[in-house]
């Protein structure tokens, strides 16, 4: 099977024109020792019908989250996606195009990315957003590297309450360099220990990296963190859930320098955690250090508004080893999908998604309080997610899982023993929550 259109005649004719006797002849200049003498040990090609059946059958071995009453989050949330998002994001002119290097035949892509950049700026309050990065964790690592480039200091202070996979990714990204990473702990509120932070920070501190709402779900006192950073001239890199910014104050208003994170929450499917996209926004003064593509608005030969990639002199295809990042492929398609999602929901819709998630999570919190075996190790304000504790959490978890309820994310493997991170999206109902509570009561009482 193949997707080749050249006929035997075409092939014969071309071979004649280029002076070759056979297709094999095209490779006659390759060293004999490396040319395979037998075909690859793979199956023969299948018909489309067989491929569809085979892969569909594979998918049926999965048990999708829709079969559960799920409260699973931890950086990836099951939000409602309007049909028009899926429809528009399957348009072939977005799917099967490449990076818009040639502006004149890519105006639609460029304008859509410009609109995406504008949306990220509106949500974060910052001046500049890149055209997208690969995913939340790598956009965080890029944000940290960016801050290190800006002030050329040697130490990084990282909150203990950023997503553990983000911290691990950061450590991988920094493993080629000699920067010092210091971790700052947290209080019983479930937020950063500001006293400890004050003691850790010094003139070598390049940046403070934190997440808000943090990994456990709690909202950090951003103003105080930024204030401590500013005292020593350090920068702040903040990971956030962009949906939370529908109700939480723009990070720029607190003076945060770089805001980044996972954009999948804006209209992306769960899809086993991919494909995702990373977003990253910053202040205009740092624009020349931003990683990734940037789309700018300009004019054409006739003075009409048009768009193109800009400040490309930061990028690898021009600067090579002196580039701000090695990033080339990004996740523009998913970023455009986020712009489509935001446009469809509008300000009223996005606010509702955030507001309902907030209300449902707090209703869930109140209901969980009724269970005497459950405690709440942390007390700070939260958005759509919080942490509870129950002894023998693993067995509690398995019992509920069997009853088709996923009671959140077990944090044992992240070193918060017997803690469970639980979240609500607007897809949850009061009934879902009531059933969850009822089931716990049935098991334990």
């Amino acid at each position, binding site marked *: 099977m193949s997707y080749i259109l050249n006929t035997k005649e075409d092939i014969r004719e071309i071979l004649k024109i280029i002076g070759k006797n056979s297709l094999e002849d*095209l490779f006659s200049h390759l060293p004999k020792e490396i040319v395979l003498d037998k075909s690859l040990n793979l199956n023969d090609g299948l018909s489309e019908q067989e491929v569809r059946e085979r892969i569909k059958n594979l998918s049926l071995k999965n048990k999708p989250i829709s079969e559960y009453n799920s409260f699973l989050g931890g950086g990836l949330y099951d939000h409602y996606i309007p049909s028009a998002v899926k429809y528009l994001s399957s348009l072939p002119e977005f799917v099967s195009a490449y*990076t818009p290097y040639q502006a004149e035949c890519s105006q639609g892509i460029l304008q859509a990315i410009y609109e995406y950049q504008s949306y990220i700026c509106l949500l974060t309050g910052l001046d500049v957003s890149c055209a997208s990065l690969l995913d939340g964790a790598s956009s965080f690592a890029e944000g940290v590297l960016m801050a290190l480039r800006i002030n050329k200091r040697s130490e990084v202070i990282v909150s203990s309450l950023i997503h553990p996979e983000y911290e691990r990714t950061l450590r991988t990204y920094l493993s080629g360099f000699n920067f010092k990473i210091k971790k700052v702990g947290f209080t019983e509120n479930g937020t950063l220990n500001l006293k400890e932070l004050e003691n850790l920070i010094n003139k070598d501190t390049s940046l403070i990296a934190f997440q808000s709402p943090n990994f456990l779900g709690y909202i950090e006192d951003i*103003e105080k963190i930024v204030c401590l950073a500013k005292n020593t001239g350090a920068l702040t890199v903040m990971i956030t859930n962009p949906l939370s910014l529908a109700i939480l104050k723009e990070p720029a208003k607190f003076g945060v320098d770089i805001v980044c994170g996972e954009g999948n929450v804006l209209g992306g499917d769960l*899809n086993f955690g991919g494909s995702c996209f990373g977003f990253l926004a910053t202040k205009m003064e740092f624009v020349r250090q931003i990683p990734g593509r940037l789309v700018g608005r300009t004019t054409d030969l006739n003075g009409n508004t048009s768009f193109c990639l800009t400040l490309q002199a930061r990028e690898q295809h021009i600067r090579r080893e002196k580039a701000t990042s*090695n*990033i080339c492929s990004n996740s523009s*398609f998913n970023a455009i999908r986020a712009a489509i999602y935001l446009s469809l929901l509008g300000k009223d819709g996005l606010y509702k998604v955030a507001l309902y998630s907030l209300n449902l999570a707090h209703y869930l919190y109140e209901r969980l309080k009724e269970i005497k075996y459950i405690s709440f190790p942390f007390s700070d304000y939260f958005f759509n997610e919080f942490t509870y504790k129950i002894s023998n959490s693993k067995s509690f978890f398995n019992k509920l899982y069997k009853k088709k309820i996923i009671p959140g994310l077990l944090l044992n493997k992240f070193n918060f023993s017997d803690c469970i991170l639980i979240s609500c999206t607007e897809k949850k109902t*009061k009934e879902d929550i009531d059933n969850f509570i009822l089931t716990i009561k049935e098991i334990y009482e």
Partner: protein
Amino acid sequence: MNKLIFEKDNKVPCSYIRKPDLDIKEPSNFIPREFLRETLNLPSPGELEVVRHYTNLSELNFCVDKNFYPLGSCTMKYNPKINEELANLENFLNIHPYQDNKDLQGTLELIYNLEKILCEITGMSRFTFQPSSGAQGELTGLLMIKKYNKIKKNKKYKVIVPTSSHGTNPASIAMCGYEVVNVNTTKDGLVDIDELKNIVDNSVAAMMLTNPNTLGLFEEDILKIKDIIHNVGAFLYYDGANFNALLGITKPSIMGFDIIHLNLHKTFSTPHGCGGPGLGAVGVSKEFVDFLPVPIVDKKGENFYLNYKVRNTIGRIRSFICNFSVLVKAYSYLLRLGSSGLLKIAYIAVLNANYIKERLKQYFELPSEKPCMHEVVFSCKRQKEKGITALDIAKSLIDYGIHPPTIYFPLIVKEAIMIEPTETENKKTLDYFIDAMIKINEEIDKDPNKIKNSPHKAPVRRVDEVKAARELDLAYKPKDVSNFCDNRDV
């Protein structure tokens, strides 16, 4: 020009979201006011406006489904539609990576099967699918080499790249804290072996190589290069961006590569989506299996699971697992093709490029006389002497409904124009392209201004990129600050 979405605000209330059966309270009931935002200036145009807006925008783009797209080094082949359909199966889409392993068996089995196929195609021992792009694959590979040397206490700090390499190669080397050493190419366009011998010493950790290289030429001395690199205890890294030319012909392992990346979004037909998401699958020889990022997918008995126990793992390069949707598309494609289908890709990709080369070589200068593989690079030097640049020629092609080839790359060729037709285009399309190139070349003498001022038929005329960089306008700034509290229906 199309208005921005921000200029189409109708203040349409949203009815996508079900209101929970609760007494909905304002955020200030839960969170102190000083943490809350005052305004949210998003447009609310309503569904029809949004559908029209993005449909109209989409129509301004060239894409593989509409246009010949011979963008060199990017392998813009046809993206079969079955791949899209299968990647969108509900039971794949609605899977959270933190669900129990037993809920994920179909997803994990697909990853496991795909890995096996790629191992057979490349001869590598294992793959990681974490890197979401070729460049991230390069970084992953180099970090594995760095960790290997750290454990072995080898003092190595240099990585060699040809001057013709992709820009991502040196950029990845820099991100890994190694020093970039360039090796020149001979006038034939291949790595200068004598210079390589002089450069190489015990401080070299690796050499990164694309083969066929960015001039579209096969590095015929690959086995000599391998020996030179391996003799100093360094490793050979394969930038697999151009692997399309070699499917079923040879394997990177046979050429002596230790770590490789494959751009699934190039060779295995997963679409580029305006620049991504992609996936840079990294394959390793036995020596590096213990260094792969975690998790990897393994099988115990009949069960597939995410294995986090990799002894010397470099850690993670991203959150969650991988760009799974890309894997479904690549897997579907590979099942469709099978071994003979893959070989035919290499044959026809190389055939098509050689056809363009043969037909255009009397009009445009060839930087090398060597036979080309899947792509051909010309220099527009002669045209430049008449005042017409590679950029002008590229822009003229837009008027023929052809997406311009890659231009000004590789950097070592003056006025480079790099054409990769791919195997999915037929002779008729290639003839149309060739005729267009010849016509443009003729017009340089007859009507140079027409070329200089092209394109003429695109949605916009030549875009002022200098102005874009000088007068930065990177985001729409809302003029009216409407209050957050108005027009809400909660």
